[in-house]
């Protein structure tokens, strides 16, 4: 298997419709090796939700959107919606196949009279899932956190090598890394190097 860089379309202006590109567009981001796998998931929406967890109205508003507030360093997934705890008054909502503008509109309506906000940050994140028997070794090369303690449903914000990242464990066999668009290329190359010995 190869993790080589592929050629990008020279000039996107040749396209008549808007072209969506992820930060890792030039890489083959579905890599499968014996000991580890990596996969990028594109076109997800990312929304920052700010609000006071002690405010009952905020909790109710969140529930009215079909969501449940996770506790510290946890996330809760319901259908195509994953609500991730970021800090005591900040959450990151990852939406799968849900119409974004409709959702923002309903959230703004739900938050209308309370000190709570929803902010579209969809362009900010690149979503990389790593798995396989040695995936913990790959992250252990890049960060001092004890990933054995990151249980299913848990999340941390830390640096992977020198890239600020949000890392959560959706299931036993994989970790999901959210990294900022501008750092994604660096992190990808870092992961590629760290996983070299597990790819063959």
């Amino acid at each position, binding site marked *: 298997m190869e993790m080589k860089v592929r050629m990008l379309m020279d000039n996107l202006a040749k396209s008549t419709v808007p072209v969506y590109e992820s930060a890792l567009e030039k890489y083959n981001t579905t890599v499968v090796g014996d000991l580890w796998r990596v996969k990028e998931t594109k076109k997800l929406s990312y929304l920052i939700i700010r609000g006071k967890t002690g405010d009952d109205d905020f909790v109710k508003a969140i529930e009215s959107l079909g969501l449940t507030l996770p506790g510290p360093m946890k996330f809760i997934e319901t259908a195509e919606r994953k609500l991730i705890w970021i800090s005591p008054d900040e959450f990151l909502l990852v939406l799968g196949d849900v119409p974004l503008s409709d959702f923002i509109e309903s959230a703004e309506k739900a938050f209308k009279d309370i000190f709570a906000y929803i902010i579209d940050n969809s362009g900010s994140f690149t979503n990389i899932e790593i798995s396989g028997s040695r995936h913990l070794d790959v992250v252990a*090369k890049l960060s001092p956190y004890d990933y054995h303690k990151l249980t299913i449903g848990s999340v941390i914000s830390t640096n992977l090598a020198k890239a600020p990242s949000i890392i959560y464990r959706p299931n036993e066999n994989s970790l999901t890394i959210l990294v900022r668009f501008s750092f994604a290329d660096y992190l990808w190359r870092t992961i590629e190097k760290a996983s070299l010995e597990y790819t063959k």
Partner: protein
Amino acid sequence: MRRINPVLPSAIINNAIEIDFIFEGQQFKGFDGDTLASALSANDVKVFGYSYKYSRPRGIIAPYAEEPNALVSLEQGGLYTPNAKATQVELYQDLIASAPTLNPNSIEKIKPLFKAFHRFMAAGFYYKTFMRPQKLWMLYEKVLRSFAGISKAPVDFDSEHYDHMHHNCDVLVIGGGLAGLTAAIEIAKTEKSVILLDERPSLGGTTYDYPDEAVGSTNQLEYMNNIISQLDTYPNVEILSRTTAFAFHDENNVIANEMRQDHKPLSERNANLSRQRLHKIKAGHVLLATGASERPIAFDNNDLPGIMLSTAGLSLLNRFSVLAGEQVVIFTNNDSGHTAANYFAKYSQKVTLIDTRSNSPDVALNGNVRLINSSVIIKANGKNSVSSVTIGERDQKSNKNVLTETIDADLVLVAGGFNPVVHLDCHTGSNPIWDDNLVAFAPNLSKQKRSGTGALTGYIYATDVINNAKEQANNIINNSITATTAQKNFLNTDKFFNVESFGGKQFIDMQNDVTTSDIQLAIRENYKSIEHIKRYTALGFGTDQGKTSNVLGVAIAAQSQNLKMSEVGTTTFRPAYTPVTFGALAGQHINDLFDPERYTPMQPSHINNGAIFETVGQWMRPWYFPNNGDGLDGAVFNECLKTRESLGVIDASTLGKIEIHGPDSREFLNRVYTNSWTKLAVGSCRYGLMLDENGMIMDDGVTACLSDDHFIMTTTTGGAAKVYQWLENWLQTEWPELEVYLSSVTDHFSTTAVVGPNSRELMLSICSDIDFSKEAFPFMTWRAGTVCGVSARVMRISFSGELAYEINVQSNYGRFVWDSVLEKGNKWSIVQYGTESMHVLRAEKGYIIAGQDTDGSVSPIDADLSWVVSKSKQFSFLGERSLSRSDTSRVDRKQLVGILTEDPSEVLSEGAQILNSNTNSNMLGHVTSSYFSPTLNRSIAMGLVRDGLRRKGEKIIVATAKGKRSPSTIESYVFFDPDGLKMNGNESENVDG
């Protein structure tokens, strides 16, 4: 020296696998499992090099990492490794090694010519001789370095790679000898996670060297092998061999280096694996089981090849099946010499044991050993290796020796007692403690969640070691750490370190050629502290860090000053315990991964379009586009002119972007910016200046009002993280009553800025749902719409003084919009430009760059930006109070002005000093920005000048580093379009929106 056949059962070599290797250009054969030292010894090689100062022949003296003499260089080119210790180098097929001081062309060959001068080369010789004239030191140094007797530094790039690995464990056991293994398995049974580190290729520590020692009904080697096989069954145990813990930091953070591929033949090394791996281990508890290393006894000519520590001889014998001599003299001050004598008596023709002590030890002696009590070796004799020793009887009271006889010897083993390997324990600031019971410096072990076991704490015999290791393991399990040092004498060691000199040289530190008399001389010259003695004589420096020499040096210093060992103390032990290559420290964070390169979504297009990049913060920004002209100057010339004439485009995605939400957002902005935000209308933008507590400019940018409780702030590219932290800090700690949320959205948006008189035309061609008329979309406002089919926020703001629009879209569509703008812009001969042209354009217009034209000491008044400072706000803004301090409000501070050279073609150097033109001296300030302006067809500059605002029109001199003086004039720093006509598309609108 010869290999014993059949191979001893305790040996770790496999004589079924022969290995060819080259040492000093000569082909040799060894066996699988050999070290370079053992294989060469089996080939009867005794001389491994010549010494540093006196060029005396030297052989190996130590069993492993303590070795001071046998430094070798391995391989060549990108695989070259300097200063490996032959005792640690694992043999592999086709290994190429050389000894730097054996090289036929080596300067060592001429060193003997200096022999007549050796008596003048005492401690401090170099300091005393080569200090004057000072100018010649560089020459002296060059010559002296070639004399140093260590490998040359590598010159080629390392062709292998390195990585780091982090670990977290409950218990870290350092040392895989009997103590470490026994403790590890006890702890493993409790399901605690255990990591065990050992520096050697095979676990077991020195059990191989003393295989016969009994443990119950078996011997320690069998006992140990049994533990190792058991340990394999515990999934909670991770064993790292060939891994040296070299640094012990606070909070039980231990750094260890694993040699992953150094032992493999070059043809078998896997390019996908790192050569070495730095392990960073965070442990709940650290159990040190680092053992003890043997120290020599000093006597005359004790550096002759063939004289080695008894542990080195035993290691060759029992671990590698190499008999280092037939006529063996063992010189001891403790029971271990007797143990060594018993092993050698089985194979050597003659074994003589010389014991400084008069009483009989605990160890029963083989009948073939001749024991001479109360005696010492006065001197060794021989040319290139030892041939005999002269011994004498020791008068216990006077310490004088009476010469008794000379004994033939081809091997002299010295057993001078053991030093616990206290190194790691000392890294966190503990000093080792001299222990008269142990006759050694014992570890302090006073830090929390740390303990020691085994020989480190004075337990030597297998049964004692095992009992102590189990006890320490139970202490860890039960969380009840107690004092751990053995209470009885270490092997009945006699406190005897050196024989009275018989007129020859007694070497203490072999790597630095430090003798007993050097230490005595240093003290006579008043270098009495052990730290001063170290610096004056070089005792304990070098790649071995004095592992065999330091305690001896302390003993000589104590004797000479009539002090106790504890009063002299030790020098400071610092990481690293053994040398670590820089590659391992750097790990994988090198080259393009050393610092993150942050890319905007347009990066692939910039590359396609041939951009030359510069790093701003961590961002890679196009600096200029060479296709636009000839070199940097040519490209910038065209980029600026074409932008001013028609249309330019720049990637402005790197600017920091912070969303501000909440009912108190305006008040928050009022407090963090100098100007007022109370009345900024929805749909409008405003320039803001951010000050620190001292009233000095910290950052600037444009903030847009998206709704009454929603703003978006832009920051400088490099200042984004700092500003975000600064704002959060104030919000969370000082103004928690403000209902405001901040969210970084820097990466969410990409920004394509279209600039120039035709930018409106361009916008009309790519966006149909925004009214771009000057009335509907005035300067310093924003509008939402669809650009190139993508939902966008368009801001009419300008950093060039031109009519300009910034198109903000979600990053994922950034490159599409960029490419589309370039395509559509062809109609107006669009030019893409980089940061250099951006700087020229902004400087022509007199826009500052926070961080370039300001340096943390420039207030808004200094920068001539008083118009941005509101003095009528209800609540103070950050820095306001400081602006009224007498020094800050002084009118003759350094102030930002424009500078025009008399010669319009001359571009001043940024940083050049500004002088008073009358005196041609008196520094007034310096140049902060300087460019050639294609638009004005002359050079322009900005600078900070004392009392500059009142000096406009005044002549000055700008002095450059090379002594050039450039007559210039102070002017306003708005060089171009001072009325802002172009910015407004030649419409007269209010500049300040």
